[in-house]
């Protein structure tokens, strides 16, 4: 009985928590903490249970629940998760829960901080479980705004980042880009970061909204229901092409795909740690997720047609992200750009369109969420004490904070793909799958891994090992329980699923297989394959 409403519980618990927090004064810090922990803990526990009871035999969209929201517009509040959504719901809940602890020490407007975080987490999970295009967009758009508030209210001014041209130009020379040229912001200010992030993502959102509206209107079914559109929707070829493009280009910027990536490292660097964790961890993955959910699922023909292009962009992403990360002097920028590079691996896995690579890409989504969450949490912890993120001015931190160092090494190692971490499994699956389709791109991507090793090693060595910088003598380790809880949780999840990925991968494969069989059916055009596809979508076994 409870299982029928399991998704609603996960989705609405943080909203309820946020509403309750409105009526609590900031003076009662303990109460604020307690409420935030409770209402972010509920979704974590329930979504862990969700992964546990997800029926691998059955596959398809499970735990569906549908409430009509407006008949005349054909909108219904339709939730359901498949093998792709389930792990990401868990990742969102976990990062939200950890974010509450990471921001335990926020002094300024703690209540508002938690409200923002709960709304952000809830909106993210909403996207991962929506089966109605309208609500998918609804939650997507809802997730953009809290980030703006995070950045402007609790953000920090950055020191600026070094881009590719930075090697050639003199250092410190003022460079302007479109956003600060038109809008007259100081490029290193948090306001600039906030506005850039919000405008990039909103522009993407409205482009995809146009695509969604086209699909809604042109199918003539008067419904936003994804499953119904996939089964019955007949679209003329050119409309399909346009809609595919609009939706892809609309959702790709949040995944930091190559020409639209520049908001992300700046945004993460300026954001408070909990917001960076959420954004780099799970919000960024909304891009790939929505592309898989909408583009792959609804437009199999166009997907098959355009994926070779995506494979090339993915390689650019990998190289660009890796090399620029190498140049950075600010920890958060290094992590931010490494996340841009990771998005490239995921896109490469998606572009290969076979079972192992697409599952690997989805697995990578989850793995990267854990690694990014851990690294941003740690860099936030260090920044809170040292008030600098400059790699050069840190050093020898292991003498003062052994526990943090240990966690950071695990996070960095997981991030550059050491066996035993989750990223390794994802990366390996992507490479194996992609090798069959795009051998050249795969070789290039594998070469870029070396760069990733290099900058993570360099950063870890400079920050934590060697002699202690005397200015950093006042630092202390994460000793209090609320400092340790998020780190232990994230390390545990990174290692646990890295060592035992079996159950996880079989869940993901169940989500991936109906999409792939749709794409295969569309490209071969055989009726038999379509029947197989229906069988899988309706719960048959592949």
């Amino acid at each position, binding site marked *: 009985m409870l299982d029928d409403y399991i998704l609603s519980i996960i989705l609405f618990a943080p909203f309820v928590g946020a509403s309750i927090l409105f009526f609590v004064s900031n003076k009662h810090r303990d109460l604020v903490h307690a409420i935030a922990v409770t209402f972010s803990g509920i979704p974590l526990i329930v979504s862990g249970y969700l992964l546990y009871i997800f029926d691998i035999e059955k596959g398809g969209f499970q735990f569906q629940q549908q409430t009509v929201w407006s008949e005349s517009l054909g909108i219904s509040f339709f939730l359901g998760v498949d093998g792709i959504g389930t792990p990401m719901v868990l990742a969102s809940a976990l990062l939200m829960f950890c974010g509450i602890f990471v921001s335990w020490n926020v002094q300024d407007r703690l209540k508002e901080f938690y409200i923002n975080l709960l709304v952000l987490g809830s909106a993210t999970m909403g996207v991962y479980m929506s089966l109605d295009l309208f609500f998918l967009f609804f939650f997507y758009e809802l997730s953009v*705004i809290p980030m703006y508030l995070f950045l402007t209210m609790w953000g920090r001014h950055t020191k600026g980042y070094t881009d590719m041209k930075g090697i050639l130009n003199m250092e410190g020379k003022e460079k302007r880009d479109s956003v600060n040229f038109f809008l007259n912001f100081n490029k290193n200010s948090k306001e600039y970061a906030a506005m850039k992030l919000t405008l990039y993502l909103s522009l993407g959102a409205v482009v995809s909204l146009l695509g969604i509206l086209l699909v809604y209107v042109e199918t003539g079914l008067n419904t936003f229901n994804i499953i119904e559109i996939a089964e019955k929707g007949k679209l003329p070829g050119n409309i399909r092409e346009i809609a595919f493009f609009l939706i892809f280009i609309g959702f790709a910027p949040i995944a930091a795909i190559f020409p639209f990536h520049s908001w992300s490292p700046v945004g993460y660097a300026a954001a408070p740690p909990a917001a960076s964790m959420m954004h780099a961890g799970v919000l960024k993955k909304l891009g790939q997720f929505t592309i898989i959910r909408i583009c792959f699922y609804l437009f199999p023909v166009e997907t098959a047609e355009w994926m070779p292009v995506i494979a090339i962009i993915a390689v650019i992403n990998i190289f660009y992200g890796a090399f620029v990360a190498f140049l950075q002097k600010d920890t958060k920028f290094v992590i931010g750009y490494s996340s841009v590079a990771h998005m490239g691996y995921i896109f490469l896995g998606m572009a290969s369109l076979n079972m192992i690579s697409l599952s690997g890409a989805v697995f990578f989504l989850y793995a990267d969420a854990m690694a990014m969450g851990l690294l941003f949490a740690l860099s936030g912890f260090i920044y809170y004490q040292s008030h600098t993120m400059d790699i050069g001015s840190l050093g020898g931190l292991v003498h003062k904070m052994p526990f943090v160092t240990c966690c950071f090494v695990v996070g960095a190692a997981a991030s550059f793909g050491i066996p035993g971490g989750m990223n390794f499994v994802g990366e390996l699956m992507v490479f194996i799958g992609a090798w069959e389709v795009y051998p050249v791109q795969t070789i290039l991507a594998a070469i870029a891994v070396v760069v990733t090793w290099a900058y993570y090693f360099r950063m870890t060595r400079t920050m934590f090992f060697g002699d202690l910088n005397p200015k950093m003598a006042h630092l202390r380790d994460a000793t209090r329980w609320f400092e340790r809880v998020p780190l232990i949780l994230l390390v545990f999840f990174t290692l646990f699923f890295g060592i035992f990925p079996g159950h996880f991968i079989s869940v993901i494969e169940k989500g991936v297989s109906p999409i792939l069989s749709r794409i295969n059916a569309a490209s071969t055009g055989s009726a038999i394959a379509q029947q197989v596809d229906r069988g899988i979508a309706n719960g048959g076994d592949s």
Partner: protein
Amino acid sequence: MAPPVLTLADLQLSLIAPELWMTLLTCIVLILDFACPKLSKPKLAYLSMAGMGLITLQLVGYAIEGKAGISFGGMFVLDPLALFFKIFILLSTILMTLASIDALEKIPHFRGEYYFLLLFSALGMMFMVSANDFLSLFITLEFSTFGFYILVAYLRDDLKSNEAAIKFFILGALAAAMIAYGVSLVYGETGTVLFQEIVAMRPEATVGLMIGLLFIFIGVSYKLGAVPFHTWVPDVYQGAPTTVTAYLSVVPKAATFGIFLRVVLGTFLDLKADWQWMIVAIAVLSMTYGNITAIAQKNMKRLLAYSGIAQIGTVLIGLAAGTKMGSDAILFYLLTYLFANIGAFIVVIIFQNLTDKDDIEDLAGLNRRSPLMAFAMLLFLLSLAGVPPLAGFIGKVYVLAAAVNQGLIFLVAVALINMVISFYYYLIVVKKIYAVEPTETTPIQISSHLKIALYVSIAGVLLLGIWPKPFIEASVAATSVFTDLVLR
């Protein structure tokens, strides 16, 4: 042939009963104000709110009963569309009366007439949404504007208020002349001013008729505050008392849409191919001009004025679609606009009552001084920007869906880009309110009247965003008058 004898029964007075009650209420408020100078002015406000509440109930009764009919020789029509707008007008007038009480206590003179003038304008607009021919359209448009001319000039010692009134009046007169000229051309082409007769004639798109329609559209765009007759908007919004601005920014525009829908969709739907481009042009220009100019504003009231121009442009998209879905979307959008825009102005009113300032710079750090006001402003601005889960988001998607349905992809693309531009200036205000430290830190006390008005607006913005179903259904029911027309 003897002229037909008009009896009282032919007039079907029950159709205009709400207007008659309203007239009575208006007179009572005026007379009480004169006859009992000792009477405290808020009591007049309570009286008019109670009266309007009762009339609203009567109108709701009519709506449930399904009362409809045509009277006064075809000049006056009562149908679901008119009922929707009448209820809209009365509810927003009640809300604004409530929000005006405190601000008026600061004005040294003429406190009573304010309520009278507000009621008088509302009465004019109630007639306006029931106008069923071009003559009553013209008369009621002027009728409803009269009250506003005086209201805008209410701060008679204030230069800006006077300037605003003069601009408002001169441009209003010009727009009225244009409408009158357009009506005369339409009459010349069709030989009648009654909407029904024009529909029955199925007129061809002759040059004279199209020029007439063009003049009417331009004149009406003055009332809507849309490009090309938008120039009065910022100055009047800034100069007029903020309570009047708040009212002016929503209610007359909504009422004008009520009559505009009747003209464009109800009467000239057959000529859609010929007038669609005009509406598209007005919409594109209004949105783009409003949003781009809003970026540069330093004054909160001017910012809301320019954002209002852009919002009206967005509403016009629904009209350009020219379908029943488009008109549903307009009605729903106007509801969302009512709460968001009046709400934003209420925040400005509260702030102005205390500090006499209304620049964006002055709002800095509002969050530290009054978390409620800051949060309310955040909701209202984000609703205007179209962010879920707030009302404006649903309204925008609704309007855009209607336009995509008619293949107006270019218009929708312009609207979406404008949505992003509007994000910028709304978010700049949000940043000022939340992220900048205030120069003055005294907490702001909100009086109970304004608090109620603020809570009502917040509730409206949230309710329409999270559970819009009943409101969408109300809009769909109200536009049922167009069903048979659209099918034709």
